[in-house]
């Protein structure tokens, strides 16, 4: 079907950069601007989170893009075109819009809600219907729910529909105003992950407003921290923000636990692991003891592995007192991590398991190294590690 191919191609490439050029909003003759001379660029296909305390102008800054707030000076460009070039209504049909209160049309079915923008754009019925079905699948809703009314869906489902409605006409830019703010924490986390998965596929340019720094760090490719008076205090990647806050305001806003937050941005694979002395079943314990005595040994316990080098457990002093390595180790393995695990979760596993060391396995389950609480704390403390992190940081999306 050629039409489907067309939508597919468009959804993978339909994104434009957003550029604020001195955009300013001043209400009446107020001395303090709501948004003051904002200049920043959001590259196409990235999520830019506007974050800050209430009253910092983040929502105003976002709403100037679709002209639900008209700026009083400066300009904003989507791609090469100023937002002022089109009528507000036309402009808004090219921009996805998701708000905290969702705002689904209660008198329209789910399918009609999703097809709202295509309908405004005058799409043919067949095309709109096909797109609606595609989007319902994309957001993981049974296409049969398309016939229901919003009141018949849970809050989480409604918010997914809100996202689908915003995506329906394949917009160049998405504006999301605290989209998951009114959702319970568990559903919220799930919706965040779902959106990041969608975004990995769709690569929209997204402006995302939140007051929650943790959400900002999780969702943003870039974060603009705003302060009272509508000024940007710092515009940087999450890692930069956590490592080098521009000033006291940013430092306070990011929080005293920013070191811990950085762990949320790293995976176990991003850090140099320790090597455990390995022991095999039936091996002479003398050999293992000799290995332990070597000066460069970092882990003082031998790790028992099977013939495929899959970790089985830790050997204790008592195990080593025997002649040969037993098939059942004295201490259980404890937490087993994977190289792809997010560092913060890995630390949580370590602490929860009351373990000093945790074995890290590769994709095949074979031992890749050992992570310890000590490695993590050294890593966070060392400036050298910080500079390494620049290159190593991978976004925890997936």
């Amino acid at each position, binding site marked *: 079907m050629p039409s489907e191919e067309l939508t597919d191609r468009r959804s993978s490439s339909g994104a434009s950069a957003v550029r604020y050029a001195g955009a300013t909003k001043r209400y009446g003759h107020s001395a303090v601007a709501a948004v003051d001379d904002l200049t920043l660029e959001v590259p196409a296909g990235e999520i830019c989170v506007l974050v800050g305390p209430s009253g910092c102008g983040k929502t105003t800054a976002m709403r100037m893009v*679709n002209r*639900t707030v008209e700026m009083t000076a400066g300009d904003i460009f989507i791609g090469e075109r100023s937002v002022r070039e089109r009528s*507000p*209504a*036309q*402009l*808004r*049909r090219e921009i996805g*819009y998701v*708000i905290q*209160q*969702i*705002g*689904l*049309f*209660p*008198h*329209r079915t789910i399918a009609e809600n999703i097809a*709202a*923008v295509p309908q*405004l754009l005058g799409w043919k019925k067949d095309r709109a219907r096909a797109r609606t079905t595609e989007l319902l699948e994309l957001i993981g809703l049974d296409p049969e729910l398309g016939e*229901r*009314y919003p*009141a*018949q*869906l*849970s809050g989480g*489902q409604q918010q997914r529909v*809100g996202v689908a*409605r*915003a995506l329906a006409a394949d917009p160049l830019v998405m*504006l999301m105003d605290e989209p998951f703010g009114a959702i319970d924490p568990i559903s919220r986390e799930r919706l965040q992950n779902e959106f990041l998965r969608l975004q990995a596929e769709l690569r929209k340019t997204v402006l995302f407003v939140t007051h929650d720094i943790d959400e900002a760090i999780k969702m943003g490719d870039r974060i603009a921290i705003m302060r009272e008076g509508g000024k940007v205090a710092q515009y940087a990647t999450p890692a930069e923000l956590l490592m080098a806050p521009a000033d006291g305001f940013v430092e306070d806003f990011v929080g005293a636990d920013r070191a811990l937050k950085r762990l949320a941005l790293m995976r176990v694979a991003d850090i140099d692991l320790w090597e455990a002395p390995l022991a095999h079943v039936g091996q002479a314990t003398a050999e293992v003891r000799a290995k332990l005595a070597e000066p460069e040994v970092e882990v003082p316990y031998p790790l028992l592995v099977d013939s495929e080098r899959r970790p089985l457990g830790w050997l204790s002093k008592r195990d080593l007192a025997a002649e040969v390595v037993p098939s059942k180790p004295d201490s259980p393995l404890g937490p087993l991590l994977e190289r792809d695990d997010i560092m913060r979760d890995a630390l949580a596993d370590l602490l929860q398991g009351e373990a000093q060391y945790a074995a890290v396995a590769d994709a095949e389950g074979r031992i890749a190294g050992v992570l310890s609480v000590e490695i993590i704390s050294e890593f966070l403390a060392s400036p050298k590690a910080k500079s390494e992190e620049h290159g190593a940081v991978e976004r925890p999306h997936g």
Partner: protein
Amino acid sequence: MASLALTAAVGEVGKGFLRERTSDTLPCQATEKLFCFDWAKDNIDRYGTPTVQHLELVTLAVLFGFAIAFTLALLAHRRRWLRSPLLAATGVLYTIPSIAFFFLLLPLTGRGVDTAVIALTAFNLQVIYRNTIVGLSNVPASVKEAAKGIGQTDRQILWRVELPLATPEIIAGLRIATVSTVAIATLAVFAGGGGLGVPIKQGGIDFKTNIILAGGIAILMALAFDVLLLAIQRLVTPWERVARA
């Protein structure tokens, strides 16, 4: 002046509505009986014309009332400052006793259906106007914001979002207006507008069978209008009936 007009009105409608079939009418009229079935059976056909007239009065008054009040409500919805003055103005029209209104209008519009319909329409405005305004302002702000944000124009927001969502309140207003108009239209007889007030007026307060028949027809008519409007409401607002998640 008013009493003169009243006498004239009585004289005109008094022309033999109940007196044509003298032999069977008078005994029933004279008794203390609450309801004479025999008389009712023989004379029910006499109520046909007044009933049709009554239907006409109510339908016209509600249609005109709706057209005017709805337009005023839309105006006031766009221009906030109009809301209170319009509410006060329709309130005055609502408060004037209908019968006084008929007599006030007589020198201007003369006797007849026109006068009756004008007064009944004026009476309707308040309820329809107020309910439309309330319905429009009860539309959730988030829904309007979303409608604006996805690129609907003000006109599209009004017709596609606000009015559909205000429909239950608007129809509720129409139901109240219609039922009240059915009752008040029995006074149209004093404006020479006909209707079910004619037999009531002519039969006098002692002829209970007649009052019960005419009043009963009015009640049935009010019920019928109410059920009809309710059915329309359910038909046009299917989302109101779905089971909540």
